[in-house]
């Protein structure tokens, strides 16, 4: 680090060549951004006292930075904001399949969102309608239970809790008059809506990825 300064002062001519730059150069952007590490600040400040090239570069960097910063924040088009509503989560909520945190999130949302509350009511109606169908004997041996199953026992209790919450919310909203009408529910349509939403919701990848192309 010590002879950085030295080398540069001796060979000022190489500075003009775009390929060869003063090694202090890279510190200049960090200096602008207040991001220098301990010990670097003195180095940069003293260097800027006598290196004309770096002073010029510093001004260039400052201008480039100002240029980017003066660009306005843009307005998000209405269409770009996804609806703040819950689709697939509502069914999972009814079935007690959400985590406690997710459940809390939904409950909070339902307190203010009539849309989701209505949908929840529909889903609940549909669910009741399906469950009231006469039970049939399974034709073949029952499919093996999925390993997920054992987790459900405790979650099922959440389902009960969810039902209680809905009840409470429905009462608050005083919607008993219109009441759910299970017979009128088009199950296929409901399922379709559901699938569409599911496909939109697909995939959270937390996997860090490297940018394509060359790395400096």
């Amino acid at each position, binding site marked *: 680090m010590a002879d950085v300064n030295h080398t540069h002062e001796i060979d000022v001519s190489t500075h003009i060549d775009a390929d060869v730059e003063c090694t202090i150069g890279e510190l200049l952007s960090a200096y602008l951004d207040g991001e220098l590490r301990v010990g670097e600040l003195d180095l940069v400040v003293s260097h800027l006292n006598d290196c004309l090239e770096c002073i010029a570069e510093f001004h260039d960097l400052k*201008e480039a930075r100002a240029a*980017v910063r003066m660009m*306005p924040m*843009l307005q*998000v088009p209405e269409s770009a904001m996804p609806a703040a509503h819950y689709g697939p989560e509502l069914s999972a909520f009814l079935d007690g399949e959400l985590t406690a945190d997710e459940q809390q999130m939904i409950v909070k949302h339902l307190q203010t969102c009539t849309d989701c509350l209505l949908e929840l009511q529909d889903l609940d109606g549909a669910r009741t309608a399906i469950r009231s169908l006469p039970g049939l004997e399974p034709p073949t041996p029952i499919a093996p239970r999925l390993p997920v199953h054992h987790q459900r026992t405790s979650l099922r209790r959440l389902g009960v809790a969810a039902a209680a919450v809905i009840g409470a919310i429905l009462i608050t909203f005083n919607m008993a008059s219109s009441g759910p009408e299970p017979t009128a529910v088009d199950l296929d349509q409901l399922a379709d809506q559901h699938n569409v939403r599911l496909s939109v919701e697909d995939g959270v990848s937390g996997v860090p990825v490297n940018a394509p192309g060359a790395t400096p």
Partner: protein
Amino acid sequence: MAEDRVPTWEDVARRYGRKIYTFAYRLTGNPDDASDLVQEVLLRVRKGLANYTPGSFEGWLWRITRNAFLDEVRKKKRRPTTQLPEDDRAIVGSTPSPDEVLASVRLSDDVQAALLKIPLEFRECVVLCDVVGLSYEEISSAIDAPVGTVRSRIHRGRKQLRGLLTWPM
């Protein structure tokens, strides 16, 4: 945003929607891609919030944003377009004269065009720093690279940018 509480999805959409959109727009120069990205990011945030543990919210959010951006780029199998923006709707506080508006849009277009000409790795760091306003540390966490790399990319990005900007400043 406070570090010790989990924001609601509505908070995030309200507070960061514009930033995410602007981030995407500055990287792609394309309003449709920017819209797609905002949607995708906000959906991912909604899913992710349930498991989010209070910490560096900015780091978390921009890591999601950045990953979503790269996924979109890969999915669409095309490089970020170099089309010129026609759509810089500035948010202006006081009412400037028409000339001022035009001049500022023109400047902004020039810078946007120049941004699109520098390598994506540099552009991304410059935008996270100067548009989004993240610290080097936060950028490092967002792009999953050492701070030294961030520093170097910002520097090189700015140098190239200045070389591309012809107007007197």
